[in-house]
């Protein structure tokens, strides 16, 4: 940080902090409400395919994307709605994509697991676990070569730690000092299997082996995530190379919406504990009230706004037309 410029007034700092953390709250609430609508669409059989919900993990996507510029890159996963929204995607076009409509981000050709949007630097959600580690690292390579100072964030779940290509690209990212941040969202379960059954050693130890800067953060604490992300992004932008962030979090629902009977791999009491004691929205809401940045009714207002926004986005998507059949072989080649 520069010490040459005069220190901003304390009151201005307070206002900007209040705005910043209210915005983070709003973003998390929007993601939660988006996913509730997805759940509804899926269970009412209005949504084709599979739905992998991000509920419970909102502080990770929001804490990180709030530390990024709009032209920074992200790659996302099959559980990607939260990343896309946090990076600035609009819910109406997202829902349209989820329903396979022409107004969707991918003109209906990608669906829930493939939302991509150049305008917000979203290189695409990826349905191959670990499939985007090369793409994110390549975007960081291009950023460095072209000198455009963009950072790439590669989101993946702890399940992707089993994929060898992750280690190939981390080695290269460190050798070439690329501005890429690998964000491992450890929601504890590789689909239906606890990560302790699939993961030898430690998670960050894998990145540390390459000499990559590592950090572990409470992924339910949006302010903690944002603070670390801000530091790692600044570092990457300054040419100091890649970083690996382990964000410990929890997936409230099943691997996908249809994964209802989960007792064989995790206890209901465990789910209940995370939902009541570790909910990122509740935790951050309480903090906002404590800090007098908001009162209960202000937070309720944010929730109402988010619900209305998502309801109208769903309505837009349901009413939107499907692509015409003649588009089926468009865009196979550029």
């Amino acid at each position: 940080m520069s010490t040459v410029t005069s220190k901003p007034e304390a009151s201005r700092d307070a206002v900007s902090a209040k705005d910043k953390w209210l915005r983070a709250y709003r973003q998390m609430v929007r993601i939660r409400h988006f996913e509730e609508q997805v759940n509804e669409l899926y269970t009412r059989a209005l949504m084709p395919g599979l739905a992998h919900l991000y509920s419970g993990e909102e502080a990770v996507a929001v804490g990180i994307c709030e530390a990024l510029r709009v032209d920074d890159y992200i790659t996302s996963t099959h559980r990607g709605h939260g990343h896309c929204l946090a990076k600035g995607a609009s819910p109406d076009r997202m829902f349209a994509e989820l329903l396979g409509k022409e107004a969707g981000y991918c003109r209906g050709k990608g669906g829930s697991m493939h939302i991509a949007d150049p305008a917000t630097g979203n290189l695409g959600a990826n349905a191959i676990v670990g499939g985007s580690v090369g793409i994110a690292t390549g975007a960081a390579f291009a950023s460095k070569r072209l000198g455009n100072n963009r950072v790439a964030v590669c989101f993946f779940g702890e399940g992707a730690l089993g994929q060898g290509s992750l280690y190939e690209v981390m080695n290269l990212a460190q050798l070439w000092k690329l501005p890429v941040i690998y964000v491992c969202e450890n929601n504890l379960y590789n689909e239906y299997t606890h990560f302790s059954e699939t993961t030898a050693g430690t998670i960050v130890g894998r990145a540390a082996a390459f000499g990559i800067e590592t950090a572990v953060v409470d992924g339910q604490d949006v302010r903690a995530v944002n603070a670390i992300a801000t530091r790692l992004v600044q570092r990457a932008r300054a040419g100091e190379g890649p970083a690996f962030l382990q964000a410990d979090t929890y997936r409230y629902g099943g691997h996908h919406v249809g994964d209802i009977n989960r007792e064989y791999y995790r206890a209901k009491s465990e789910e209940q504990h995370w939902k009541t004691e570790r909910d990122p929205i509740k935790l951050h809401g309480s903090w906002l009230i404590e800090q007098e940045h908001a009162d209960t009714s202000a937070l309720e207002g944010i929730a109402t706004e988010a619900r209305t926004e998502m309801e109208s986005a769903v309505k837009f998507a349901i009413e939107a037309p499907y692509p015409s059949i003649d588009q089926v072989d468009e865009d196979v080649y550029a």
Partner: protein
Amino acid sequence: MPERELTFAQAVREALAEEMRRDSSVCIFGEDVAEAGTPFKVLSGLVEEFGAQRVLDTPISEAGFTGIGVGAAMTGLRPVVDIMFGDFLTLTMDQMVNQAAKAHYMSGGHWKVPMVIRTTLGATRRSAAQHSQSLHAWFSHVPGLKVVLPSTPYDAKGLLKTAIRDENPVIFFEDKMMYKLKGPVPAEDYTIPLGVADVKRKGDDITLVATSSMVQVALGAANILEREGISAEVVDPRTTWPLDEKTIIESAKKTSRVIVLDEGYGRYGVTAELAAVIAEGAFYDLDAPVKRMGAMHVPIPFSPPLEDVTVPTEETVTEAARRLCNKT
């Protein structure tokens, strides 16, 4: 003035150098591509001209650096990724098939992947089963990829320049036994469109549709056949996708007899596709079933006499042509 001649390897290098001078977003990465210039010495001199920022040696991590190529291509560069032996393409399959081939379509046309994979094919180099395969059929099978198979130095330069300028992922297969083959190559800038076949030799009695390494074999067979009074036409598709079906079908209709030749495995391979295209497009003009000739359905053996019988030769092609023309 006599035509300038270059080897196949020199033609590839010249195409790369010209495109790198023309467009600063073109860069090369792969194993031993910089000072070593690859084991085949195809890239010698490029790092000296363009520097280590544009010609980058990578670790032995084909999946990793191919994936980096995909991401870099999506975000403003035109990477030319070097996969030393075509056999190692197996290590890149997710990146090529699930990522590069689909990014444009899955994103509704928003993202593009203008990258080239340069790699090799071909047996008879005594390299055994993991360094001798011709796996281009796999990539020709996948929508979103283009597959280029140059057979002369002239084609190599013109097709590679087009591949680098293309907005899609293109796999460029070089026959490693052909690197020393000499042929005329203009010094000036020229490109050859993808999807346009080249009639390498005109003929009337039989068509030999041949790709890559098999083009020289077909031309050699055509010379022998000519002495025996059989006039063979040699058609080189030059790209398996896009495929110039029209030129192939027209030649088949004209001669009424066809052998399709490709160094990939015969079963479920390029020859099967070419034969089907001809059957669909020229069935009523054919006087004989289309004959397919490809690599024998075995892992390529090391022992020279064994390896030599796994691929079509001038002699086996000539013999097959005689039978097809009822002149045995």
